């Protein structure tokens, strides 16, 4: 789960990680008051769940409270389109007003889970402010890595090693070491999947601050963090993804696709997207209905797929183990009839109660073409796409 920068800052504050003075505003008037309180030059930052906001005017340096008010007014209520959002962008409902610092050096630090080591991995680099994936690609030697111990955590000497590798001034080593240790605690105690500080700054007077913070909480651990679960901002999600979340469906909207996919199981769902692509069309979505979906959830899944205007044809691929084909078929038929959906469907159904499921679909009078298996579905889809012609 993604959270906003101002929420991440609050978590960092709680764990003793130094951050610039900052407050969040929902109105331009509030922004002005905050800027006045902080004093001097401040930065106004749009609070959205997407990177790349700086490049599209989502982060602005201002010289007065009046200017802060003006910038806040121009951002609030708009939608920000960055290289990480879809074409419709994400809404700016809050802005953060933060003090500016006299920066001497910009560094990078992040923590993720390393699956192979089986522990949280701290990655640090002197190339702060840059796109870290690019750094990793072109100059991997500039990234310093240290894994924490699953049972002990990150020892102080490890944190000091990182501070030294970052080449911070002698006067800042102790504070940087503490900051890294505290960040590690943030990661572990909040069940994070990502803590990223880019940049971590050293000021002219050798103080250390987390200037920007990105924190993701692991969805599977939210059950034990009700306080963090409450930070969810559904408005930042694609509306269809938001609807899928509520129905407990794993759904990802894919930009520009025309084939809606309904599948059970994540691996098979990806394989189904792949054969769609091989058949000459882009998938409109990833959708895993899960193992034990009841009819209501199947109906909602179908409705979410056809609510996507880009969808011209639906590919259903079911290999039922725990799931039951007849229930899936009933769900599809009920939802298609309720919504008067006329999109053609290519359906492969195997496993538990497949025969019953296929019969329900065949008897429904809907526009359905059966396919025997994955390869067969690809062929049928290809023929059907030719029939539909070019995407409109």
């Amino acid at each position, binding site marked *: 789960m993604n959270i906003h920068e101002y929420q991440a800052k609050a978590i960092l504050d709680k764990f003793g990680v130094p951050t610039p003075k900052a407050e969040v505003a929902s109105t331009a008037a509030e922004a002005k008051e905050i800027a006045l309180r902080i004093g001097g030059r401040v930065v106004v930052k749009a609070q959205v769940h997407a990177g790349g906001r700086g490049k599209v005017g989502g982060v602005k340096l201002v010289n007065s409270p009046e200017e802060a008010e003006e910038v806040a007014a121009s951002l609030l209520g708009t939608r920000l389109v960055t290289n990480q959002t879809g074409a419709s962008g994400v809404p700016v409902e809050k802005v953060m007003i933060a003090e500016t610092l006299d920066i001497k050096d910009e560094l990078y630090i992040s923590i993720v*889970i390393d699956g*192979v080591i089986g522990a949280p991995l701290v990655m640090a680099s002197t190339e702060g402010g840059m796109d870290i994936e690019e750094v990793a690609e072109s100059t991997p030697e500039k990234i310093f890595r240290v894994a924490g111990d*699953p*049972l002990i955590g990150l020892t102080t000497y490890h944190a000091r090693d990182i501070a030294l590798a970052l080449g911070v001034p002698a006067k800042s080593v102790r504070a940087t070491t503490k900051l890294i240790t505290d960040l590690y605690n943030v990661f572990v105690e909040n069940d994070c999947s990502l803590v990223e500080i880019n940049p971590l700054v050293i000021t002219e007077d050798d103080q250390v601050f987390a200037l920007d913070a990105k924190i993701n909480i692991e969805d599977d651990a939210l059950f*034990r963090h009700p306080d963090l679960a409450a930070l969810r901002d559904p408005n930042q999600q694609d509306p269809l993804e938001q609807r899928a979340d509520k129905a407990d469906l794993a759904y990802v909207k894919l930009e520009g696709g025309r084939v809606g996919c309904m599948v059970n199981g994540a*691996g098979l769902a990806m*394989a189904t*997207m792949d054969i769609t692509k091989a058949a000459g069309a882009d998938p409109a979505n990833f959708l895993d209905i899960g193992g034990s979906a009841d009819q209501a959830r199947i109906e909602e899944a179908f409705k979410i797929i056809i609510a996507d205007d880009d969808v011209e044809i639906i590919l259903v691929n079911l290999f039922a183990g725990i799931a039951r084909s007849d229930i899936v078929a009933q769900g599809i038929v009920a939802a298609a009839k309720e919504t008067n959906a006329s999109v053609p469907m290519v359906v492969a159904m195997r496993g538990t109660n497949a025969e019953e499921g296929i019969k329900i679909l065949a008897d429904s009078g809907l526009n359905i073409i059966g396919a025997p298996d994955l390869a067969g579905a690809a062929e049928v889809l290809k023929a059907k796409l030719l029939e539909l012609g070019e995407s409109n």
Partner: protein
Amino acid sequence: MAILVGENTRLLVQGLGRDGSFQANRTREYGTNMVAAVHPGRDGQKFEDEVPYFSTVAKAVEETGANTGVIFVPAPFAMDAIIEQVDAGLELVVCITEGVPVLDMVKVMAYIKDKPTRLIGSNCPGVLSPASKAKVGIVPGNIVQPGNVGVVSRSGTLTYEAIAQLVQHGMGQSTCVGIGGDPVHGTTFTDVLELFQADDETEAIVLIGEIGGIREQLAADYIKEHVTKPVVAAIAGNSAPAGKRMGHAGAIITGKAALASEKNKALEAAGVHVVESPALIGAKMKEVLG
């Protein structure tokens, strides 16, 4: 022979709620020797009037000689169940439960590192050896067929797809192993490849990977050095965009190595028969085995 599970498997099932009970029944119908059921508060009762219930794994092992455990408890309790089974000395523990917090699995892996127990999962479909009717997990018994192809996969239903394709082309399986889709998991591709390479009954191997992580690359390295049996591989997620999690916690493109194309490249360089579409696994294996 087969690997991991066979005629000597004495199965203990932990967590007999709705899904656990359903799967325990399918397992028994298939012919697997289920000797114990563990569910707190049901001591003295019997599952389906036949299999004794116990409140603790230790007691169940002591009374029944169970050597293999399968876990269906809800995610918040999965770490505890795994550790309880490891402490009771089970040889093989299979955790089917989906949605176990990653940091719980981090602790589990550190805890079991020097213990003799082998863990498969979490978030996996489990293991099935058709010839000995040994099913530990949720792979449907009616789709498999005894034979000589070993199957190892990160995905559940895509494993079933591969099995169906093998059967369609007249090839049975020695053992099917679903290692699971979580970023931190017990038994890895490499572990299973080592077992298949040493197994007399396995003539060829199907490996099914997906986007995310670098496990397929590690498998490729291992195959290059140690595996002489033919391997057919498919990687799901060629069409997946970067940065979006595709259902499995581990299935997310976070850098170049996580791409399907990079994994395909590494496997091809190791001499693996990589199919461009997951629909071609069966046909390719048929071609390889002649």
